[in-house]
């Protein structure tokens, strides 16, 4: 079986697995990293959203062979380390607004929100409702969308450092 090496949440790993197995299953079934959830397997529901070299991606739709030794995968479990803290500011905002209901989609929501806000901040922009409409495709079947909006806006402020730790 082919060997594949890459970094997951700061840890270098090597897995023996066929080339075409999608990263979601490599993470969940082989490595036991279960923060990214399965909701559809075809890049629609976004429950598995994680980061590939710092940008959001959906591991359900990427074969392991496309991930190289220098690539870094970050899942919800590794998100706090990217800011050297116990919790990422977006996670803090999620707690503050008590967003979750069943919780199944929320790791993916948070990972997508962090990516969106990072992108907008890099462009020198604040997050708007229109940005959320277009970019936050993640399904929440419990319908927590309203609190998600509030948390993204709050998290974006915290990510600027203005409410860090608040």
């Amino acid at each position: 079986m082919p060997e594949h090496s890459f970094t997951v949440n700061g840890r270098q790993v090597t897995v023996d697995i066929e080339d075409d197995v999608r990263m979601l299953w490599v993470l969940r079934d082989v490595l036991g990293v279960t923060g990214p959830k399965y909701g559809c397997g075809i890049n629609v529901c976004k429950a598995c959203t994680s980061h590939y070299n710092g940008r959001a991606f959906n591991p359900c739709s990427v074969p392991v062979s496309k991930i190289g030794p220098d690539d870094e995968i970050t899942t919800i479990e590794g998100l706090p380390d990217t800011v050297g803290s116990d919790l990422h500011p977006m996670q803090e905002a999620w707690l503050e607004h008590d967003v979750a209901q069943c919780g199944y989609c929320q790791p993916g929501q948070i990972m997508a929100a962090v990516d969106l806000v990072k992108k907008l901040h890099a462009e020198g922009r604040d997050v708007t409702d229109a940005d959320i409409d277009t970019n936050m495709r993640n399904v929440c079947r419990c319908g927590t969308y309203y609190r998600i909006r509030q948390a993204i806006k709050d998290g974006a402020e915290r990510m600027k450092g203005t409410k860090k730790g608040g």
Partner: protein
Amino acid sequence: MAKHTAHARHARDGNRPSKPGAGDTDSTSAGSEGFAGGLVASVGEHLTGRRRFLGYLLAAPTVVAAAQLGESLLGSQTAGAAQPVPSNPQVADNYDLSDAIYDAAKPTSDLITVQVHSDGTVSHEMVRTEVGQGVQTAIAMLIAEEMDIPIEKVNVTHAPARPELVWNQLTGGSTAIGSQFTPVRVAAAIAKGRLLDAAAAKWDLAKSELTAHAGRILRPSGQALSFGELAEAAAVTENEKVSAELKPESDFKVIGKPQRRVDAMDIVTGQKEFATDMDMPDALPTMVCRPPTINGTVKSVNNADEVQNMPGVTDVATITTGVAVRARTFGQCVDAIHALDVSWNGGPVEGTSDTSIEKELKDAHPPWVIPGTPGTKAFEREYTFAFTNNAPLEPATAIADVKEGSAEIWAAAKLPITAQGEIASLLGLPVTAVTFNVIGSGGSFGRRLFNDGPLDAAEASQKMGKPVRLMWHRADEYRQGRGRPMQVSKIRAFHDGEVVHSLENRYTSVFTDFGHGFGDLMAQYYTSVNPDTPLATNPGSGLAVSQAIFELTAVWPYSMGPTKQLLMEVRQPTESPGTEHNLTTFNTTAMRQVYNPNVVAAQELFVDELANEMGRDRYEFRREFAKDDKFREVIEKVAEAGNWGRSLPDGVAQGIGVHEEYKQHAACLVEVDCRPETVNRKIPGGTTGPRVLRVVFVSTVARHLVNPLGAEAQLQGGIMDGISLAQTNSLHLKDGAFLEGSYDDFRYTRQWNVPTDVKVILLPEDSEAEVGGFGEVGVAPTCAAVACAIGAARGSYPHYLPISHNAGIPFEVKPHDPPIPQSPTNGLEHYPAPAKASEETSLNP
């Protein structure tokens, strides 16, 4: 975990009251073998007044308390009459679904326990299932309140299936908090009382001199002992009947205050464990290759050996619902399903379509029975509601380990006792040989009333002789899963231009499955309060069950003279309802709020159209005809808070929906933008259409609202469901199969259709109504209000919901054979839009 369960079970077994009665001392010996430790209390019998109850201290190394319940929980009964023409009382006015479920829980509430541990924590194995509704948090709040212990020190977990609870391990009907409100507090109060006794003995002080605070017992000098330090001293060696007084409401510091979820940290850090996340290395991923038509069956598997040799695949086995494959990863299960060559038999609904079922429903409408009176005019409308699907984000899942002579299952279930029984029957094992561990789920909305995942897993594990980690594919959920079936409402009123003289509502639906046990139970309670029903003589039939539930939940909120509501069903199963793997009709369930999203949407659309016909303002009409003061209050409040009648641009309009259920009256006001530039806004791969701009939702509140933050969350979620059901969320039936295969197809509300202004207003607690529930009530009034607003904005009312259903199929239909889509490979190139998003869509009528 298994060890802990055994102890808890032992404690309960020694706890059955023999002669309940005020003041009795009743000791029964309980074995002395190795308890892990804890003071255990259980729930007791209602004594005098509203706050004194009997319960038990159970023999254990630390304190275990149990409660016993009497007749205290039956809600107060109200029936109102109002002008203009009073309606006859409806069954649900006086005794509704909540009452039936509360009554079902009462006889066994004495089997609920709270345990204090030496580490200072308190634990409780709840007999309700956390599906996102926040019951785990609310129960922890009840214990924290009653025991004066920080909520962080209260551990609430799921009890496994406990057959001795009979009907008291059931999650549904928005009754989780109502049914647990008293029993859990009584057990907690008994445990705290015993800790006070132990501290009093230790210090040689009178108990009355001591107080509990923040998990410690304090004496006047300021000295303190923690609950943990007292847990062993407080233990009893024989079961003991005791009484306890509940904390007075005036002292509540936790109940009624906003409390964030106890599992929130685990959720946002990815640590919350769902069934497929559990660390059981031998339970390999398993999926099922399902038939191309609904409930088709396997004729033959033509290449099992070849598939068995594919990379990662360990087993291939035919089970009742298809061909199960077990592999190292779920991805390799998908590959195996694509490679399988299976010949199928058609299913029981082969050849059906949306139009054929709609015709069956319309043909089955019973005739009207209320004639017009002189000087009145008939007004009649018909509304169709498409098939839909529960679609919790976590699909049906289960881990199963079936061995020779025993089985252990880990799965979400709202009826764990039923699950255990069905699995035992399927495997040919005695019920006592099946352990069913309940795991919290990634949503339910009625899905986990059925055990399709656990049954598949158990059968596959038995056939393969290995543990399995079974999961349904998303496409399986839409195509072979469950939901609220297609339904047609036909409503007729007679009016004289001023007053409505009579009202008939015909709700004709494809059979709704209430599952083994639950439906029969509800029918039994229904006939007990309504002995004259013809259904009493025919209790076993599916229609009897459905009729009972319908009558227990349907409330026409307006005084419109003699009012007759009737449910009729088509496509009844040919086997008894709820039989495991009953595959003889459509797969349905009691989806969130059961009939009422459709009942209320039809009712409010009809009321809008009737008001227009009679030349009346739609709000004033509702206010005037409101059946009682509570309906009038929520209608007035929502109109005031929502600024009814304010000036809006052409193409933007308001709508109101009104309902009463779960002991609470609710009204919703929305504003919907139907202007072309809004309706036609583009989101790649997404259905846009009208945009709900603003939602105001007002509800009365039954005593006691445990967690306002949780109630608000449930209503906010229900509001999104209502928007979905009115606008976009449905299944299309064609050639005996549902076309939808993904969330982009199924079109549950996404951010681009979410209002940016949502206001939930909870009125002060209503002293007449006891223990309500908020898990479902948000859905129906919102769905109704959105549909009405769209009708008003367009000047033409929708008669088919969701409004997008007949506006075309805005997606490429995924093949039904193989039954599930393969995962894409280009996920690094397309974010956030899906790689194959169809061109910008906004297919709306």
